[in-house]
């Protein structure tokens, strides 16, 4: 297990975590607009304990705070989402976005440098021509590895509201960006033009009762995408049907359970994240209290529903008052779509095995997890009976929340963002470390 953290400051709060398509790289974004990229060390027989560990590869400032002078509003630099592009050549590319502006970054390595120019010296300054007495052929000399990050494209002015999702299409040429009311389709090479593919802004804003909360392209079919709403529904759209996908192809919605009806029914049903399974057959959604697996072929109800922290159902009023009820928890599939993971409070995160229906609560904390230690399952007790090591609902720390998690695309390695700490856990089955 690895832990990366800084001295705590609000800017250090991790706001997104994302593995690249091979799992070799892991990127995090934070509230301060920085992106940190971790690279998995190549396996080495000499250092058995060092194999597969992730170390910092590069850090760069992706977004800066801005000020909208027309509206007198600050535009935060916080990185809302990072998405890796499929690797096309030696360089890696990723998209990062704050509330308004999406940027395409190219990450390249340099481990050689040219030496022996005729007209320039080592530092690149022009030589005094009188000293040049002979001509030589410049050569490439090895040097310490340098990672260069350069901004390649800036996709600005496409969003009036806050961007909540970006998703790269399987055609590898386009991507979409979603804000509260609209979804735009961009070509990765064109920054001055985007196509509006969803617009749910009512003619009269007083009629607005629903917003887009998350959106994603289908992993295999480049014409399909899904978006979730604050009313708990999912809409699957087919871009072949029309240029503006205002009419969904499929609407996934579960009728409200009358026994659980409360003032907060709508708020807790608001979908905070939606993810297609790797197979493309299922969709995973997270709302405040549950994670649900939907079959693309069944619109009426989810095929599986898992309770993340049902014991909070009796605390909703307090959670509404302290704004926690609006926390946007994300969710993740493992590489084989058999296990799902999502975060909770008190630095807990939950895993659900879809086959065995077993679930586990784990804790990401410095105190309880030393490198190569095994995570101990935690339990939150609700009633009077309390076992040793159980945590009572009342002692949960709602400031320590795990909103962002990511699962390695093929292996059992997970990355957990707990406030300003990044925890990387590895399954012991795959190697001798955790």
């Amino acid at each position, binding site marked *: 297990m690895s832990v990366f953290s800084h001295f705590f400051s609000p800017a250090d709060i991790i706001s997104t975590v994302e593995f690249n398509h091979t799992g070799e790289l892991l990127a995090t974004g934070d509230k301060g607009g920085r992106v940190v990229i971790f690279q998995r060390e190549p396996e080495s027989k000499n250092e058995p304990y060092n194999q597969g560990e992730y170390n910092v590869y590069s850090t760069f400032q992706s977004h800066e705070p801005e000020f909208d002078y027309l*509206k*007198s*509003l*600050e535009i*935060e630099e916080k990185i809302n989402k990072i998405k890796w592009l499929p690797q096309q050549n030696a360089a890696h590319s990723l998209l990062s976005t704050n*509330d308004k502006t999406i940027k395409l970054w190219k990450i390249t390595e340099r481990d050689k440098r040219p030496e022996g120019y005729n007209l320039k010296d080592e530092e690149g300054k022009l030589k005094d021509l009188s000293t040049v007495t002979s001509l030589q052929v410049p050569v490439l000399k090895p040097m310490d590895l340098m990672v260069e990050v350069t901004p390649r494209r800036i996709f600005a002015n496409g969003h*009036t*509201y*806050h961007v909540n999702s970006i998703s790269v299409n399987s055609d590898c040429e386009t991507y979409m960006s979603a804000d*509260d*009311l609209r979804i735009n389709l961009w070509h990765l090479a064109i920054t001055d033009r985007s196509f509006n593919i969803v617009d749910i*802004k009512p003619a*009269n*804003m*007083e009629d*607005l*009762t*629903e*917003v887009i*909360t998350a959106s994603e392209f289908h992993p295999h079919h480049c014409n399909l995408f899904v978006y979730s709403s*604050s009313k708990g529904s999912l809409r699957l759209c087919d871009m072949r049907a029309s240029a503006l996908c205002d009419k969904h192809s499929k609407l996934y919605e579960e009728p409200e359970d009358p026994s659980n*009806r*409360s*003032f*907060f029914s*709508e*708020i807790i049903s*608001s979908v905070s994240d939606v993810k297609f399974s790797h197979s493309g057959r299922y969709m995973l959604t997270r709302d405040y209290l549950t994670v649900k697996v939907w079959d693309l072929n069944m619109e009426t109800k989810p095929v599986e529903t898992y309770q993340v922290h049902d014991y909070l*159902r*009796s*605390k*909703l*009023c*307090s959670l*509404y*008052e*302290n*704004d926690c009820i*609006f926390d946007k928890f994300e969710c993740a599939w493992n590489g084989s779509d058999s296990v799902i993971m999502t975060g909770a409070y008190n630095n807990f995160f939950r895993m659900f095995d879809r086959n065995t229906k077993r679930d586990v609560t784990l804790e990401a904390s410095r105190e309880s997890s030393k490198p190569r230690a095994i995570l101990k399952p935690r339990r939150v007790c609700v009633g009077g009976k309390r076992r040793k090591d159980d945590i009572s609902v009342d002692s949960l720390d709602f400031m320590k929340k795990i909103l962002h998690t990511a699962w390695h695309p093929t292996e059992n390695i997970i990355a957990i963002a707990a406030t300003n700490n990044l925890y990387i856990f590895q399954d012991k089955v795959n190697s001798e470390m955790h």
Partner: protein
Amino acid sequence: MGVQRYMLGKGGKRKFDEHEDGLEGKVVSPTDGPSKVSYTLQRQTIFNISLMKLYNHRPLTEPSLQKTVLINNMLRRIQEELKQEGSLRPVFITTSQPTDPLGDNFREAQPAFSHLASPSIHPTDFVSTTPLESCLTPASLLEDDTFCTSQTVQHDGPTKLPPPAIQPVKDSFSSALDEIEELCPTPTSTEAVAVAAAAAAAAAEDSKENSSESNIQKPEGVQESRTSESKLMDSLPGNFEITTSTGFLTDLTLDDILFADIDTSMYDFDPCTSATGTASKMAPVSADDLLKTLAPYSSQPVTPNQPFKMDLTELDHIMEVLVGS
């Protein structure tokens, strides 16, 4: 009276604390007889929290649209419920809804409220949201209060409401609240109150004592408060919201009667039935009451650049004008 009002403001908070654990989340259907009280209580609490949330957010940052929409839906839902409950008294609806003579004051105030509720989201977009917000926001609360405390007042405008019908029946919720109030220690000093609140209290006391005189003073008071408000409107930056400017001098709207269901309870101990205050006297106080109701739920201290603070100082001014005259 002012002291009592303050106590009520406190009582609002205390009642929330006391019932928090037992009630929250476990919302029962409004039709469940025995738990109707707790249901109404929770509804009031949630209503107050929701209003607070709409007003309180970090200055200069754009509030999350998702959050705003969800909170608005919450308020809308509560309003819808109240509407349904209100429809049991058809007199109100038939008399008030069709006429609904919104005074100029009220119309002017609407943009201010929408601005308050969603202060920064795309002016072009959100100016149009006015009716939504205004029907949910303190406008109705204020007017409701006016309504509650001034039934005996003859409204200046073309009032269509039959005064006897307005009298809210003291329901079980109200009496429950009264019991809660009795349990609460009565604060004997207003030291802890915000300056403006104290001023409002003083004004209220005055108005009570001078109630006989106030009738005579009324026309002047009305005039003055109006002019001072319009002056404020002109001189203050666009971000300023004049909560007192809403049509407290105008006729009651449907919302007034509806919201009476929840808010009259706050003032039930008040000599509601024998209220002798005048509209001009009572309205600013009611604005202040709203503030007090909201204040306990505020997690952050009110900062100078938040609208309410400005309101308080301006309220003071208005109060001085009214009381001093």
